């Protein structure tokens, strides 16, 4: 598969998949940790103008 240039085509797709996958994973994990941190702080009763993180 991919002929004589497989050694260049396969790494290209692998690097792309890993970079995009890593970027999506990092973004999702950051979102999760920020929501958890917000919930923790608001649970401690620290005042902010709007309390719900989704609605501000």
């Amino acid at each position, binding site marked *: 598969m*991919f*002929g*004589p*240039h497989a050694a*260049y*085509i396969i*790494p*290209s*797709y692998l*690097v*792309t998949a890993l*970079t*995009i996958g*890593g*970027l*999506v994973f*990092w*973004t*999702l994990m*950051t*979102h999760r940790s*920020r*929501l958890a*941190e*917000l919930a923790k*702080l*608001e649970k*401690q009763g*620290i*005042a*902010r103008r*709007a309390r719900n*993180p*989704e*609605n*501000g």
Partner: protein
Amino acid sequence: MNETAIKSSSLWDFANPTRFLGIASPVIPWLGALTAALFAAGLWMSFNAPEDYQQGQTVLIMFIHVPAAWLAMFCYSVMSVSAIGSLVWRHPLADVSIRAALPIGAAFTLLALVTGSLWGKPMWGTWWVWDARLTSVLVLFIVYLGLMALIRAIEDPVIAARSLAIVTLVGSINIPIIKFSVDWWNTLHQPASVSRFARPAMDTAFLYPLMVMALAYTMLFLTLHLMNMRNEIYRRRIRTLRVNAARQAEGA
């Protein structure tokens, strides 16, 4: 208040961080699904495209390299427009937008460099050449890294926002240099074959998969940009809550 003033006031309200979250959060899953569908279609079309008479199967690398290079520049253009918004109108979401786009732009630029190098070795016989196109894209990557270092180095959010916007605008001079480098200088990199005024110099068997992949990359950028903007707004709220907590502790 006249009609223009009412309109601009409404636009300003529309773009405040709280309204932004209210709109972005339900839209993100749909954008994500559309991106996945476009990637599935684009990859299917790419792997079913015929071999190029000159490039052979390395044309497959073009379907991921060219959109990455386009997005590297598109992302910086979005940052430059946001920088104007940040400096001129002090728009609350403009600085958020620049910061959110930074890691995405850096990733796309890195992908353009790596996949370009992997294509260059079998086609040009070299991994790298210091010609105008390749060098200017490397400079773009360094600019992205520099901007990421800059926001980590400045603690004051107001000074950080202004510095980021100014340096982003200074760096935007590199975008037309990248775009026209193949016309202005004699480079190993081939000139534009899709984004030009005349008919694209590419057979539709390659043009269609390339266009679908470019659309998939663009939707990926939009999705990740919205997600990162949301994360950045949350980071600022966490910071505010921590400052408030410190104030409450001081007052107790």
